């Protein structure tokens, strides 16, 4: 088998990174939402 030696590792790494960053972003968004939900009733 010959070809670009890093192709498979790079592809795996990209999707893994995208999944981790996506999860972190979703987590942050959920945290923000939870904070706003907790804070907004107090300011009303």
């Amino acid at each position: 088998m010959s070809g670009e030696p890093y192709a498979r590792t790079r592809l795996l790494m990209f999707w893994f990174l995208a999944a981790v960053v996506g999860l972190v972003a979703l987590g942050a968004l959920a945290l923000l939402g939870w904070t706003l939900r907790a804070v907004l009733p107090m300011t009303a």
Partner: protein
Amino acid sequence: MDDILPLIALGAVVVLEVAVVFVAFWLLLAAVPLALVGFVAMFLGTYLHQVRQTMVISPPAARHQPPREPAAGEQPAYRQYFFSQGWADLEQSVGAAAGRCQVLTVQLTNRIVKSCFRGDAAWLVWPFGIVGVAGVGVGATGGAVALLVAVAVHAVLVGVAHVICWCGIALLRLIDTALLRLRGIRMTCGACHHRVPYPAYECPGPGCTLRHTDVRPGRYGVFRRFCACGTGMPTLLLLGSHRLRAFCVYCGEPLVSETGTAPEVMLPLFGATTAGKTRLMLTLVRAVSDLSAAASAGFEFADAETERRYRELLPALEPGRQTRQTVVGQMPRAYSVYVAPPAAVRRLVHVFDVAGERFVRRQRTEELRYLALARLYLFVLDPLSIEPFWRHLPEVHRARLASFRAVQPPEGLFVQTCEQMQMMGARTRRSRLAVAVSKHDLVCHLPPFAGAASDSAALERCLVRDLQLGNLVRTMRREFREVRFFATAAMLDREGGVDASVVALGRWLLDGEGLAMRETA
């Protein structure tokens, strides 16, 4: 009335301005969180886009290009991704993403400044400009933090993968070494006789002849490595490197096929010049082949070179023909065969045949490293070189046999070689010794050999009592764990079968190495 109109207009403007500021203030409360979320999404999206560009769409060339003529410590292979390229890709992705995010932020700010702080309506919409700038400021800050977090996650992933690779390397090497030890597998070069810690392998790529001197897991690959030509190859015997062409790391000569898959048996032949070593070696290989066939065991030449030399020498075994004298100058190359009895582990048997002159001078014997590695030895004793036997031969027989007689007397040669082997590190006291009293076809009808070749004990008695070789036999018994005597006639019969004496010798040699051959019906 004219004085009031400007005041009314001014009042209206003030009211409008206040209303705009009021709206802008409330807009600010909504715009800042929205801008924050938007910028975070934009920065993360930009980063992932750049990572995709770098890693999938248009990957850059490898940072460390593999050398085609590697210096010491280098290999003609690409470094493993997480040992080099992973960090280069990270740097490139971060640089490109940071630049892109900066450009987007500046463009957005310029657009807000242009539309809210310049132009005819600036006096009215400037509060919205402040809201926009504040949103951009807060969003860009949040986005930068998110970008930093993403970069940190990326760096941690590469770092963790790097550490996992090191652990994998250590674990794989450990497992491979342990398995080789457990299976008793060692690798010896048949040409230079060095123990090879791990073979060098030639790239299996079409047209590529690059040699990898150390393929084991390391910075060039954990499970596989990629040659400079781009061809992948396994990094361990455990992972299939035995299928590649292997070479000795010391002399560069090819090793046997499937090196490292079977435990080795080393069988050095030693004895005087023209004692009949080559002839005996050939018939012995033939006998092992025949025994294997009769026992439905596997037998194959371990390399093409062994097969070629064997086929070349084989005609010399035909009745009436003699083998050529072995060349002194060359280092002896092993005759290597794989033997696989049905109920035992396959073994690689190296038979070393060397010119007798090598055992006369110590310096020449020292070069034969295999002597120190073997646990099984075959001493070829020419009965014609035993002085009392030769002296008592009738003149007619002496004239007939003179050309077959070995040059050196057996006692001196054996003792000197044995001492030399021990000095080289051979553990003879843990080894077995087969003594082949050769040329039995020539002396079997002559006293004292007539009737003395029936078994080992009879032959030993004959050597000690009749031929005054008591000292030699006692030395053999003292220096070796087990000694067995055989009277051998290294010849083929008319049907091409090996003489029974050599078959018996072959059977004894194989039995002691766990390669017992039981004939199948």
